[in-house]
């Protein structure tokens, strides 16, 4: 606790200088970002000095950086001084008491997605015994995991309980200097998960199961760190198909994965943030940095993502293939409907010998959506016999949407083999009519074609989630044709 006191002391001294007073007991910080706010967050989290220092360095670095303008997306300028960077979790008193108090539109979507009644309450944040339920179930899971030495907790808890591990790995894959949003996240992150799988352990369950039951509302600046020690194995699932709303428009998460020798991490995402209306108004900006480091030989990191939400998605889950024979995979379905804009793809950085990467990207554009695939395959000089296979397919629904591909290939070793295939197709009226004539409605026909288009990616998802993801795409595409 002494570090925390130090922090607060430092904080108190400084606040005068800025003529600005934030009560440490306050539930939230005032809007705006400066060193005080960074200190306030760190103090609130009772963080050790090193972490505060790290945050401050990140903040100072961020001040020198410019927001990237290269993505193929458009949005009005973000005023970073308007954002509230810390607010305490809502008290259960403010939560709806039953589903009757929840937005009927939200309930309708749960219905369409076939989410079980109990789970609907939890997702809608209903403050009834669902809470007790999740706590007890969560505890059981936690015990099972603990028996194996697996650590799975919030990043804040990890900082308190396992500071050495966090200190060892935090920022080693995505340094705070990496990019504008990563720097911002490093300075102000308040929430996220930490997962550690010790040597030789196979995580006995999809971490999704636990996560879905226990999922706290994910923060605006989420920070996730997963470390898989030698020969360990973990499958982690983030997000859920239920629609997520948030009063915070800007989301800038950072996810770091570290796989040591022969370790394997499978990271699956289903992202369904509020996309905004037909004009993109009110939707979430999702600017995410996700990167995995295949640090040891024969390690493997596999990203699977289904991105259907957000007004703007800016996201490139990547793999740094450092260890020899390391394997990186990226399977993605990205949907841009309404006025959504998605600029997403991956980076595969081949450094070790005989490293292999696979990229399968499926972009769906509908409405006035704009979907861009942006991918880098980099083969460094050291990466003898590196191999990459990229398949990048676009599907257009209607005439007002767009699909774009920006593949970058940088090969510095002649023994490398890099393959790139790309297709663009359109759901034609002929196809729809053919289905209609066989008795299949237009909506079902679109779903069928879209699911067919995405199936290579869906088969990479944990089974139950593949089914949900299919439904989700269907719901997200409702009314996109005819």
């Amino acid at each position: 606790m002494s570090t925390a006191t130090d922090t607060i002391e430092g904080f108190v001294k400084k606040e005068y200088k800025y003529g600005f007073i934030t009560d440490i007991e306050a539930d939230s910080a005032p809007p705006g970002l400066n060193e005080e706010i960074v200190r306030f967050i760190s103090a609130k989290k009772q963080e050790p000095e090193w972490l505060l220092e790290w945050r401050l360095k990140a903040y100072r670095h961020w001040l020198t950086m410019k927001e990237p303008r290269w993505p193929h997306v458009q949005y009005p300028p973000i005023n970073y001084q308007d954002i509230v960077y810390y607010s305490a979790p809502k008290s259960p008193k403010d939560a709806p008491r039953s589903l009757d108090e929840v937005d009927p539109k939200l309930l309708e979507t749960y219905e369409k997605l076939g989410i079980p009644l109990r789970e609907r309450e939890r997702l809608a944040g209903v403050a009834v015994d669902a809470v007790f339920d999740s706590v007890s179930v969560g505890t059981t899971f936690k015990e099972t995991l603990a028996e194996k030495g697996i650590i799975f907790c919030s990043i804040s808890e990890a900082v308190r309980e396992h500071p050495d591990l966090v200190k060892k790995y935090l920022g080693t894959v995505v340094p705070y200097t990496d990019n504008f949003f990563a720097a911002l996240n490093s300075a102000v992150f308040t929430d996220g998960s930490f997962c550690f799988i010790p040597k030789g352990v196979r995580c006995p369950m999809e971490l999704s199961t636990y996560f879905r039951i226990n999922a706290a509302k994910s923060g605006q600046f989420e920070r996730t760190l997963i470390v898989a020690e030698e020969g360990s194995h973990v499958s982690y699932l983030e997000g859920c198909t239920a629609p997520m709303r948030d009063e915070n428009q800007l989301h800038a998460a950072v996810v770091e994965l570290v796989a040591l020798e022969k370790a394997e991490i499978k990271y699956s995402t289903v992202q369904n943030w509020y996309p905004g209306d037909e004009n993109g108004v009110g939707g979430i900006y999702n600017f995410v940095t996700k990167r995995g480091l295949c640090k040891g030989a024969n390690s493997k990191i596999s990203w699977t993502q289904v991105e259907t939400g957000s007004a703007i998605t800016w996201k490139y889950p990547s793999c740094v293939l450092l260890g020899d024979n390391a394997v990186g995979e990226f399977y993605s379905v990205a949907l841009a409907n309404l006025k959504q804009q998605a600029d997403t793809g991956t980076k595969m950085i081949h450094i070790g010998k005989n490293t292999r990467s696979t990229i399968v990207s499926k972009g769906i554009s509908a409405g006035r959506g704009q979907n861009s695939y942006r991918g880098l395959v980099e083969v460094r000089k050291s990466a003898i016999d590196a191999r990459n296979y990229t398949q990048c397919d676009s599907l257009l629904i209607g005439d007002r949407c767009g699909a774009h591909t920006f593949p970058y290939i940088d090969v510095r070793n002649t023994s490398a083999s890099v393959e790139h295939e790309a297709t663009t197709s359109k759901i034609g009226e002929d196809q729809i009519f053919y289905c209609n004539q066989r008795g299949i409605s237009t909506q079902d026909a679109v779903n069928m074609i879209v699911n067919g288009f995405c199936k290579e990616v869906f088969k990479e998802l944990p089974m139950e989630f593949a089914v949900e993801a299919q439904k989700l795409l269907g719901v997200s595409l409702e009314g996109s044709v005819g």
Partner: protein
Amino acid sequence: MSKPLLEIKNLHAGVEGRKILNGLSLEMNAGEVHAIMGPNGSGKSTLASILAGREDYEITDGQVIYQGEDLLEMAPEERAHKGVFLAFQYPIEIPGVNSTYFLKAALNEKRKANGQPELDAMEFLTLVKEKMKVVELPEDFLKRPVNAGFSGGEKKRNEIFQMAVLEPTLAILDETDSGLDIDALRIVAEGVNRLKTANNAQLVITHYQRLLNYIVPDQVHVLSNGRIIKTGGKELALELEEKGYDWITKGDAVAA
């Protein structure tokens, strides 16, 4: 006398201001097979498309009554549920969509609409295996995406296979024979014959008398300039094969 299954009365239709059908009338009863022949561009496929519910066409006059109901009021899938089936002149490819999955969805949609229980995967597979024999379709076709990469003849055969599974009340076959080799023609035609019952009807569009050796029509209609200008028995087809269309279409031009 019972009501006809299908009554087309004075149908006028076109596309983008261009008239294609000019007062077409036709009646079919259950248990009947009718053939439509006629020169290229006379409107045969247009008629088939309009019956199936394609929206590109503007109906300017006339009526189509099917089982006592206004067919033109129904959405295409509703028509399908009520037993209208079109074997396309050019079947459409749907990459990525598995044939079995597609056909199961089609059949179950129809069954649902008619208050019948849906078939589960096992029941469907049993049904499909039996129906494949109708057109001697190799089983691996079912594992492939709908029509994707099928040869012209295979696509046609697949249409009849779908027909066998969906058991339509009114089947419209638009040049199903074209593109088929001699053996396939026989197999497909025999398949179509086997699907004939006293309760359904088949409207067969073709250019070749040859098909009608297998599928024997009750009536043969000649379509020209969007109207039926002559109707006869199966011997009319032979006469057309021998003399071409000129001898009737010329008379039509004078009459019009």
